């Protein structure tokens, strides 16, 4: 659906070269929600703006449905852009237009007939829950309501793709939740592919199917959200994950464990989906005569999947411990032996 191949973007500011995006290759599938996360200045906005050519890449190609955007003439590019909605952190509504007129904008730009505009705008305002506010001006709305208007406006041209540039970064946590719910609903009901960028791992966790992590203009890690959560490779990814749940054991606890005569092994078990239901601790005790002791546990929801992390200390015969680890690994659980001695 969306294909970025070796995309780079260089800015020149007073003869100073800024490489905002460096050699990014990624593919977004039809119907998925693809998240791009990174710290401020990582190049996220520049990258997402390359997808609809608001920013022309210095190098590399951007293809939508197999069509290279660079090959399009001005008019064709404008037509393609109508199929790519975009929403922004700052909403970017016309302050001199009512809610209704703001949502009608893409239809009017395309010269749609009046009755079609009335019908479509009414429908969209219904979807975003602002039907009764259609005569108001943006200055009379809250941030969340403004973003809803922006979403309705972005949907007015029946886009196949919705680009979200930090759509929730200016909103409070509760409003963020409701906007994310709305995006999820739009993705499911209307099968619109969504690309969103954010600096909050929470947003990725809640609605994204796949994620790319950006650092200094490069994509340093990408994959299914669940995989990235259970097997983060890069330090920056681990840092982002830490912002929503801390898997490191406190130093004081580790010190305590070290003082035991038989400290045993510390295991971190990550599990997703059905395995949550299995009584693994009981199995360890019964089958292998081990004594598992829970040190830390966390269960969370990653989009539709339950994802849990458990840190346990097991004591028993070394051979039995190894057998227990093998058993757990056989269950497709993610097992990691924590080296606490070092």
């Amino acid at each position, binding site marked *: 659906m969306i294909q970025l191949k070796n995309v780079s973007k260089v800015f020149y500011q007073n003869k100073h070269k800024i490489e905002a995006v460096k050699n990014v290759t990624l593919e977004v599938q039809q119907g998925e929600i693809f998240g791009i996360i990174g710290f401020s200045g990582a190049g996220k906005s520049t990258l997402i703006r390359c997808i609809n050519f*608001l920013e022309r890449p210095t190098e590399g190609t951007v293809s939508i449905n197999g069509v290279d955007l660079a090959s399009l003439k001005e008019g064709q590019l404008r*037509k393609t852009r109508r199929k790519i909605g*975009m929403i922004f952190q700052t909403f970017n509504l016309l*302050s*001199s237009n009512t809610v209704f007129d703001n949502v009608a*904008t*893409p239809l009017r*730009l395309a010269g749609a007939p009046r009755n079609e505009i009335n019908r479509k705008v009414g429908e969209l305002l219904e979807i975003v829950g602002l039907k009764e506010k259609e005569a108001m001006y943006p*200055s009379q709305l809250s941030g969340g309501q403004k973003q809803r208007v922006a979403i309705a406006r972005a949907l007015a041209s029946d886009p196949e793709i919705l680009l979200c540039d930090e759509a929730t970064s200016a909103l409070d946590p509760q409003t963020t939740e409701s906007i994310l719910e709305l995006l999820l609903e739009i993705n499911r009901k209307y099968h619109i592919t969504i690309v969103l960028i954010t600096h909050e791992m929470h947003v990725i966790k809640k609605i994204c199917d796949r994620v790319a992590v950006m650092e200094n203009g490069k994509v340093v890690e990408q994959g299914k959200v669940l995989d990235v959560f259970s097997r983060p490779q890069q330090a920056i990814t681990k840092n982002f994950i830490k912002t929503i749940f801390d898997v490191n054991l406190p130093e004081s606890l580790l010190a305590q464990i070290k003082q035991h005569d038989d400290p045993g092994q510390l295991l971190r078990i990550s599990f997703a989906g059905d395995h949550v239901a299995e009584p693994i601790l009981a199995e360890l005790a019964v089958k292998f005569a081990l004594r598992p002791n829970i040190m830390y546990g966390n269960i969370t929801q990653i989009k539709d999947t339950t994802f849990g992390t458990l840190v346990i200390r097991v004591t028993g015969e070394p051979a039995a411990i190894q057998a227990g680890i093998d058993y757990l690994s056989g269950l497709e659980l993610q097992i990691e032996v924590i080296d606490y001695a070092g």
Partner: protein
Amino acid sequence: MLGNFFDSFAEFWDLYVQSMRETGIMVVYSLVISAAIGLLLGIVLVVTRPGHIYANPIVYQVMNIIINVLRSLPFIILMVAIIPFTKWVVGTTIGVKGAIVPLVVYTAPYLARLLESALLEVDRGVIEAFQSMGATHRQIITRVLLREARPSLVLGLTIGTISLVGASAMAGVVGAGGLGDVAIRYGYQRWEPNVMITCVLLLILWVQIVQSLGTAIAKRLRKR
């Protein structure tokens, strides 16, 4: 003293009516022409800046310099300096016609700057949103720039109009008539202090009306 003032007011009544009319004609004609030119220049100054929809450093720089040059001349000097140009455009350098040309050359660049800064206030994000919706450059100018900037454009026009009223008083020197002409001929050369005072009051009245009107319209537009 006061009775004296009213007597003189009645005596020169026709003169005042006539000069108000002349000032009105000069201001309105010059304003319409200057506003059209000024708005056009203002738009060009905005959209040819680096990174904007018609980015063009050469056009932008040339326009910038021309406007700065024109803006650095006081009206009275400009009026004399462009006499050949005025003659070429309207065939005469005196009367209302002869005054309108220098008034426009004086006011249009000023308005261009005022309207430029009004247009610059428009949020770049909104322009970007329109680009992402596939708007043409023309649609961006008419539906975003001009529309969003309306209150500030009106305030800019108001300031420009007031400066125009002032300049039109000086145009009296070339026989264009108007309040300035009356003030010079009767108030200064014939030493009729009452006429002078009346002219000053009438000019103040003009400025007040223009300013209040402009502020009211801008306020109405901004309420949204």
